[in-house]
Structure formats: C-alpha cells, structure tokens
C-alpha cells in the first residue's frame, strides 16, 4: 500500500503517527482513507470540494502530485504546508 508521511499538526490528528500505510489508487483516494481512519483530520487537507487546500503541497515520490495522481503500491506521499505565509 502507498505510504503517507505527515508532519505536525497533521500527524497529531492522525493519532500521533508520522507515517501511515493507506489504501487507494489516487492521492484523493488515499487522503479519503486517511480521513476515514482518522476522522479528526477531515477538512484539514482536502476541503469540501475534495480539493487539496491551496497552501498544502502533496508530493508523490518527490514530484508534485494532485488529487487525481495515480498511485502504485510502493509510492511514498508527503503532505507538507507550502512556503507561503506572512
């Protein structure tokens, strides 16, 4: 299964886990599985439109991914805040 890596505060919402194996064929599927297993994280990465929030970056094996990016079983997904801010 794809592996998702999280940092605080997202990892805290996922039960303190920084790395999780999650089922799904796309980035959106995997993030939905994450929400199902850890409901506290719902709304923090995907918004109501099932869109990755504007200032969050998702990387798949080091490359920028989007909601519909396809995943293989051994893919690694990093969820990171962007470098925007003020």
């Amino acid at each position, binding site marked *: 299964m794809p592996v998702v890596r999280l940092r605080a505060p997202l990892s805290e919402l996922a039960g303190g886990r920084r790395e999780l194996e999650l089922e799904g064929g796309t980035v959106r599927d995997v993030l939905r599985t994450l929400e199902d297993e850890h409901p506290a994280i719902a*709304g*923090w990465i995907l918004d*109501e439109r099932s869109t990755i929030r504007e200032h969050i970056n998702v990387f798949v094996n080091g490359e920028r991914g989007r909601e519909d990016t396809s995943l293989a079983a051994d893919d690694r997904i990093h969820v990171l805040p962007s470098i*925007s801010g003020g």
Partner: protein
Amino acid sequence: MTELLVGTKKGLFALQGDAGSGFEIVARAFAGEPVEFAIRDPRSGRYLAAVTSAFYGPKVFVTDDPAGEWEQAQGLELPEGGEQALKRLWSIVPGEEDGLLYAGGDPGVLFETRDGGTTWELNVPFWEQPTRPEWNPGAGGMCLHSIATWPGDPSRLALGISAVGVWLSDDAGETWRHGNEGLVPRYVPEESREDTLTLCVHNMHRHPTRPERLFMQFHGGVYRSDDAGETWVDIGTDTGLPSDFGFPLVIDPQDPDSAYVIPLTADLDRVTPDGRVRVYETRDAGASWTARGDGLPAEDAYLTILRQAFGREGAGETMGLYFGATSGDVFGSGDAGATWFTAATKLPPVHSVRVA
C-alpha cells in the same frame, strides 16, 4: 478585573487588567495562526475562537480555559462535492435559546449550533438563496460578519454581509428577505444603485432595549434603522463625523440613542484621519457626534481598526470600551469613552477585540 480576548494575525491573546492600567497577557493560543474572532459565551462560560489557518482552512475551537486545550468544533463546512469551500469565519454570536449560537463566514454563510458550539449546521435556506450567484464579495471576501439577534425572540434575526447588504428573518432563519431601503452605495454608478445587490455593510448592531433600532457602519455611510432593519436613514452626513467611512461600531446597551464609531479617512485611505485616533460618540441617535480622544494618540498615528476590533463591557457611564488596531496597539476606556488608556502594545495586527 477585565479579561480581553484579542484575535490577531498570529494567534489569540487573553489579556487581563483593570481600566486605566496596562493589561497583562495571561494566555496565547493558536500561535502563528490568524484568529479572526473570539468570544466567551456569558451563559456557559465557554470560549469560542474562529481560526483560519492559511494551510488547513477555517475552524472553530472551543474550551473552558483559554490557556488550556482547545477542541475543534464540527460541522462548519459547506456541502460536500459542491463548487465552493468555506474560506473564513468572521463572527460568533450567542442566540436567544440555551446553547444556541450563530457563526457567520465567507462566502456569505450562516451556521447554527444548539449544543453551545460543539457541533454546527449550515443554515440551508440562506445558502440556497436564489440570487446567490449574483452576489459579490467586498475586499475582505464575502463575509457575513454581523448577526443581530432579537432579545427574547429567537425567530427574529438580521444579518449584515460585505457586500450583500442586510438580510432579515422572522422565522428563525427558515426564510430571508432584504432590508436595504435607504442604503446608498456611492461606489456604484447612480443609475445602478437602486437595483444593485452589492451593498457593503461593514458592521451592524441592534439595540437590546429597543430592538427595532439598529445602527450600521456602511462602506461610506453611517445609518440607523428604527423599523428593525427594513429601512435606513443617513446619520453620517453633516453630523460632525470627520469621515463616514470606517469599520466597527459599538452601542451602549443602557441608551438606545447611543453609538460609537471609529472613522477612517476614506475607502482609499483606511487610516485614522489627520494622524489622530479618535472615537466618535452619539447620544442623540446620530443627530450629532462628539469626538472622544482624551488619552488616545493625537499626532502621527495612522491606524487601521478592523470591523471586529471594537468591544465593550457593561453599560452607562462606567461602560468599558476596548479597540485594537492593525498596528498591534489596544486601547481602552473605563468611562464610556471620556478618557482612554493604552491596554497593550506590540501585539500582532489585531483582528478582533471582545471582553470575555
């Protein structure tokens, strides 16, 4: 001892002190996150904060101790699978039934809770207003910032939205209608003013002892309604204000003829006029305004005070008034504006001020 809840660009600050002296920071929560608004519900003692993370979206958190753990409230979201997402939460207001509170947000949405703030539901009739596709946001987004309840009657509500005007309900939010007659949007051509929906309300408050009376700071204009928001009369022209542009507004709950505003120079120059910080008070329902600046910066002070950054406690001659600026300064008065003191300086830009 007065406790202030100051929402800032970089977290929530709880300050404690007495009128006339500097206040002490006793708690900071949501470090680094924009806190748009925070209140303490006087009925339950519970604190509620609207936090809009740039990364993780808008949330409401609740606690019984602002220095302790905060719990995320649930249900503050738009319908899944739609074309819009909730962008920001601007206001939280206690309702007229036990456990009932309202929250207003961007894009022009109203939420309700009946359990004191733990779980919320979208007001669907307002979300499904047929004219919604024609609505336009103000510079701060399409923010539903003013929620005026009717003391003792939970069925009657008035909403103020930038920039979709005033909305009224007589059935607890099941149906809604406009309340905009008399408002003059000088920022649209004269020939378009009668039909436009783009009415930029900046702040609106109902008087608790004469609830058919409301006061409003508009985007260029100060108004009063004596018929529960159906029609509005101009009280900002030739009445003694240096400008009729500004954001926040406060009333004295003991005096239905009272209101306080903090004028800014103009919509294209949103700072205190002439480098002087002054609050303006009316005690004759807007027929005249008097400057209240004793103790406030009187020169070289070009401050911006945002729409939720002016709060009060008590009433009458000893009413406390507190406001904050984007400069990070917070000012207070313990005598209804007659004299002022500096409560705090060097905070992050202030979004909201409320007395706990």
